[in-house]
């Protein structure tokens, strides 16, 4: 199998890019540790809208990174790129809307 | 059908044995039917819990042994129904869909009857149970037995349609068998409504829901057995299908 030098370069760059995506995902996950402690009062958990909203938003950021980078949507045709972005938006809007509507009712 | 040459076993081999099991099954069914004290005459849906409990108390052995017989042999009818399904391969159909319908309901119909024998046997299992519970099991048994006709109605309807669609010079079953199945299906329908009334011809002990329904099933068995035997006799030997009607192109024919 002939491997041209350009192929090797792109392979290296894509490998690096995938690694960076993974690093970002892990970093965002670790941020959760900080958020978690920010709201809790000692051992007991306290309700917090700020924590809830940021938890959901960070999860959506991770979902989008997974789709774009790891699932390779960034090389997909526009319809799939838009559809996956739409999905992220739908998930976010549904979750936050249910949360706020639920709070308003409660 | 080119695969059928050489020393390949005849597809119809053993079918006569199944056909001749029918008289034995019918004898056992008749014996069980007459042995069960609740069939001649049929138990009344108007009986009180105490009366029903007394019935089981007095007839314990006959209820148990007759229902064990039914429990064993209600499924013995499935092989006969499979013979009918096998005859359907010779029909001038393009697809096996109607045969699949028949195979499906042929499996489910005896299972419904099986379920009702389970309820009768539970009712008879503890005669010292509270009469209220014995009545409950008795109701479950009778409703399952009487109303549980959907797969029998389906069987007759699918057969009627399959025979009507069997447009060839020498159809597998004569045309009148289709009409006969329609009549039987119609005779079975009122039994499904037996839950609506405790008295009159439509109650589970009534003329229509009990006598007409069960006679129809008995008649169906006898007539279809005769028609089945004729269809098997008419069928040519191992080379059946190759002589053929161009319309015989069911893709599942060799399945």
């Amino acid at each position, binding site marked *: 199998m002939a491997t041209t030098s350009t192929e090797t370069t792109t392979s290296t760059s894509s490998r690096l890019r995938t690694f960076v995506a993974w690093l970002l995902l892990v970093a965002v996950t670790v941020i959760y540790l900080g958020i978690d402690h920010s709201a809790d009062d000692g051992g007991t958990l306290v309700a917090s809208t700020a924590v809830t909203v940021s938890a959901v938003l960070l999860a959506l950021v991770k979902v989008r990174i997974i789709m774009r980078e790891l699932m390779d949507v960034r090389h997909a045709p526009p319809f799939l790129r838009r559809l996956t972005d739409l999905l992220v938006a739908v998930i976010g809007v549904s979750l936050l809307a249910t949360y706020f509507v639920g709070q308003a009712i409660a | 059908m080119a695969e059928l040459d050489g020393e390949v076993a005849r597809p119809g081999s053993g079918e006569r044995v199944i056909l001749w099991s029918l008289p034995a099954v019918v004898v056992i069914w008749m014996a069980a039917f007459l042995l069960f004290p609740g069939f001649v005459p049929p138990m009344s849906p108007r009986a009180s819990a105490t009366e029903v409990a007394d019935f089981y108390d007095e007839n314990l052995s006959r209820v148990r042994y007759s229902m064990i017989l039914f429990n064993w042999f209600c499924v013995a009818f499935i092989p006969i129904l499979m013979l009918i399904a096998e005859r359907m391969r010779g029909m001038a159909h393009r697809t096996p*869909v109607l045969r699949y319908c028949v195979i499906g309901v042929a499996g489910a119909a005896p299972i419904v009857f099986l379920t009702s024998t389970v309820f009768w046997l539970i009712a008879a299992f503890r005669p010292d149970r509270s009469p209220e519970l014995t009545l409950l099991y008795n*109701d479950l048994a009778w409703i399952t037995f009487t*109303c549980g006709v959907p797969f029998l109605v389906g069987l007759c309807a699918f057969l009627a349609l399959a025979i009507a669609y069997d447009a060839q010079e020498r159809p597998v079953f004569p045309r009148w068998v289709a009409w006969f199945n329609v009549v039987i299906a119609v005779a079975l329908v009122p039994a499904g409504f037996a839950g609506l009334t405790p008295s009159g011809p439509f109650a589970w002990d009534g003329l229509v829901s009990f006598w007409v329904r069960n006679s129809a099933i008995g008649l169906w068995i006898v007539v279809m057995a005769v028609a089945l035997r004729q269809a098997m006799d008419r069928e040519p030997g191992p080379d059946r299908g190759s002589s053929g009607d161009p319309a015989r192109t069911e893709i599942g024919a060799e399945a």
Partner: protein
Amino acid sequence: MSIVSNLRADPKRELWFAWYSTVAFYSLYSVVFFGLTRTQPPGKPWLEPEQTVEWFAGRQDGLLVGFALIFVLGGWSATAIALIAYSIRRMSVSRAFAYSYLVLYLIAAVPGFLFICVAMTVGAMRPERSPEAQQWLYDLGFLSFSGTMGVFLVGSLIWMTAILLDKNRVFPRWFGYLNLCNALTEVVIAPSWIFQRGVLAWDGVIAWWIDVAVFGTYTGVFIYLLREVIVRDDFGRGPLPDAPPGRPRRWHPLAKVVR
């Protein structure tokens, strides 16, 4: 042109019979369960014995008439299953898939929809029965109906595997994956054996409403796709051809009648 002449003249008449029957049976089923008997959406699993007596009394005629219709016409359900079995039979996979599907669904019909008919009829025919016994029948009816949905898990997986292995292009591959979605929501009904109240009970938001939404979508989609299969079928053994060109697509089952 009427449906009847369509069914007589068409070489695909058996297939069309099965397809129209499928539509008719699902319609009947909806009318009986949602309309006549009002057993869907289901009753509350947490009813006290006395409340189940009232529940039966409040819909006595509907239960008796509705389930009598199922007693008479329930065998019609075989047409949908036989048609699906045929669609699998038309694929390039073993007949074992088709036969498994056929046997699995038809035998499962007995506990799956006949038990609720029997239990509810027995409950409705004697409203004076003791409250405990009525509650027992109420539970038997709903749990045998809803709880046995798990059977569809294996059924959907059989259909899915056949579609994904098929080389005859009988169904689009995305429908294979939709079977997986359906199979996974059938799992969700299992907690109804455990919970008497909440989102996972047999009337719960997750176990009933979301499940029914997914199952309804799935059913609608496969009824439509089965129709496409019939239109495309050439009774051959190889890949199914595309829909005949130039032929107007009949989107609605009655469109031909209306024209």
